């Protein structure tokens, strides 16, 4: 017979107990970039709100986001979008049951890292 009270479920183990590997690092980076993009999302909404408010307020917010610090945050956010984008596509591929052997998974990891940098540079050139 089952015990009447279910045991408390365990939390995820601490990341520090694992030896760093390309596959785990690129996976963790997916989570970090995805969550860090809240900063870029907040700045974009602030910018839109300012655009809807008045030319003076827009000049203030737009100036802030295109200052050197704003440029740095937006460039990092751009890279975060591209990294998360590629890692997300990789996730969809993994989910369909493909590319899970270690050599392929490692190649896909490098594809995410190198691809995200290349796409960031290309986007900056286009803009």
């Amino acid at each position, binding site marked *: *017979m*089952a015990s*009447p009270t*279910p045991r*408390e*479920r365990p*939390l*995820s183990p601490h990341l520090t107990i694992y030896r760093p590997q390309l596959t785990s690092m690129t996976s963790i980076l997916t*989570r970090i970039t*995805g*969550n860090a*993009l*809240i900063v870029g*999302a*907040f700045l*974009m*909404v602030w*910018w*839109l*709100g300012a*655009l*809807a408010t008045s*030319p003076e307020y*827009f*000049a203030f917010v*737009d100036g802030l*986001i*295109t200052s050197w610090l704003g440029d740095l945050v*937006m460039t990092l956010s*751009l890279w975060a*979008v591209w990294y998360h*984008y590629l890692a*997300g*596509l990789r*996730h*969809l591929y993994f*989910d369909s049951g493909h590319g899970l052997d270690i050599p392929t998974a490692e190649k896909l990891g490098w594809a995410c890292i190198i691809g995200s940098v290349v796409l960031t540079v290309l*986007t900056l050139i*286009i*803009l």
Partner: protein
Amino acid sequence: MRFLTDRKRAEGRGASHTGTQHHWYMQVSAFGLALIVPTFLVIFGRALGSGYENAFATMGHPVPAIVTGLVLLVGMQHFRRGAQILIEDYTRKSTRKVLIMSVIVLSYGLTATGLFALAKIAL
């Protein structure tokens, strides 16, 4: 004594208690975002720092306004679920609940603010 077996308690729900709903939503939203995010990056990147007149005219056009609205709406729902799993992985009890509620409130708050701004600019 309860006459519920472990199997009966687990059936169809999994660790999340919602079955595969979350996973399916993330797959669908990832696919949708993959379609529109590149276009959005170019629209927003070009409008940024291009001056009030130009930015206002750009964001007022149907395609930039729709793409931006969609990225914001779907992106924030995608974020809300991703962030919730992060919280569920590393916190428990009241901390977990407060953080999850905060993430949901923040997501809807940003979405509503952004959509209101877009409506005001475009209409």
